[in-house]
């Protein structure tokens, strides 16, 4: 598998990965604002957000119709739709594409759900690798607390209830997230994750993220227009 830069795309793709509650969405939002305010061509895409596929996914989730296999496939369908219709054309047009979750989310979750890892990886092998992947590594307890504080009603699949780890959703969520974390850590070297200590303050993390993006990507090349002087 190659990155978009290695495949000579003019655009660049940056992905963030991490557990729910690791703060990755906040970080990618701040990164997006920083890039936009410099007048760069930026596009943001979220996991599980393709319009057409979303209807089927939410039906499947609501009615608890999904097995590990169909859970995996329907998310792959969603990803493929966004990949082929948005990400690739934008990357061809020289955009910086920011992805809140990428194929590694599927690798981690589907494997924990019991799908054969080679099968899952094979399905996603039509996708190129990100040029930069940030992994927000928070203390498991911290991530759990953030989710549990803000949104005490855990959803069935989110809590991994389909795995029958525990009858208690909170306990199930803990075990499930712990296993996903293990999967992420196992992939970290192979896919050259930039590991960010997500226990630090938001600002410290964002400084590191911006530094790394600035060092890895020649940002002026992505300018759509000259920004107003501050």
């Amino acid at each position, binding site marked *: 598998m190659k990155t978009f830069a290695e495949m000579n795309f003019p655009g660049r793709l940056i992905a963030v990965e991490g557990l729910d509650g690791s703060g990755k969405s906040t970080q990618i939002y701040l990164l997006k604002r920083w890039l936009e305010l410099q007048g760069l061509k930026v596009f943001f895409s979220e996991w599980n957000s393709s319009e*057409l*596929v979303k*209807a*089927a996914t939410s*039906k*499947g989730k609501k009615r608890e*119709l*999904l*097995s*590990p*296999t*169909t859970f995996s*496939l*329907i998310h*792959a*369908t969603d990803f*493929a*739709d966004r*990949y*082929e*219709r948005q990400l690739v054309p934008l990357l061809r047009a020289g955009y910086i594409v920011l992805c809140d979750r990428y194929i590694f989310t599927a690798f981690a979750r589907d494997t924990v*759900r*019991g*799908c*054969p890892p*080679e*099968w899952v990886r*094979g*399905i996603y*092998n*039509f996708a190129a690798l990100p040029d930069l992947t940030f992994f927000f590594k928070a203390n498991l307890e911290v991530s759990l607390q953030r989710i549990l504080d803000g949104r005490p009603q855990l959803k069935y699949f989110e809590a991994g209830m389909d795995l029958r780890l525990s009858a208690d959703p909170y306990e199930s969520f803990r075990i499930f997230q712990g296993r996903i974390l293990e999967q992420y850590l196992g992939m970290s070297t192979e896919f050259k994750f930039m590991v960010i200590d997500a226990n630090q303050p938001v600002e410290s993390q964002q400084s590191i993220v911006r530094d790394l993006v600035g060092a890895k990507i020649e940002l002026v090349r992505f300018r759509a227009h000259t920004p107003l002087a501050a």
Partner: protein
Amino acid sequence: MKRTSPPRRPKNGPRIASPRSKPRRFYGHGIPGVDLEKIAGKLIVVEGADGSGRSTQIARLVEWLEGRGHATVQVGLSRSTLVSEELAQAKNGNILSHTTLSLFYATDFADQLENIILPALKSGFMVLADRYIYTLMVRDLVRGIDESWLKNLYGMALVPDAVFYLNVSPEQLVQRNFSKTHSLDFWESGMDLGLSRDMFDSFLQYQSLVAKQFLRLQSTYGFSIVDAQRSVDQITLELRKKISAVMAGK
């Protein structure tokens, strides 16, 4: 007190033979958590283009099997609870790109495999599938999707007990479609491929590309090619004979 004897099977009633079991396998990684030992029924697949007589033959096979005391279940593509509506919507608008549509179909297939086919087989039903993974693979192969990618994807599928490909020439298919509906289907004509702007032309070209891929897959997946240009009765007799052999564990 008068004694009653327990009910007995009438002496002249025919003995209904259960199908002989044979070792089962998936094409690849399979479905997590499925125990193939427990599968008693048989999976019989009928493949072929629209107008090749699939549904007629399946209806006849169901009648024949039920007459012989076997319970049957019928399945087909894009009939899943999970995504069939969305799939129909996507096809109408022709809005999804190839990989996406392919994965959408795979989701539909997986849903039916897990929720209908496997449970029915476990309960000892004869499952008659109106098309299976081969149609899905062939459609994608014709559209340039990587074969090894498809093989990995459909490694989840159970290997059927019999696969019959009803082979009809594209010229015959056109005639049959016209005699039935007086029109050609957009997808069955491969109009999305841009082979020709003329639908009649496109249909012929597309169907011969499809047939070529089917015949190519035949060597890998070993299906029986049935000459479906013959009479309906002749085809039924051939299918019955082959299914009888399958039931006997051959």
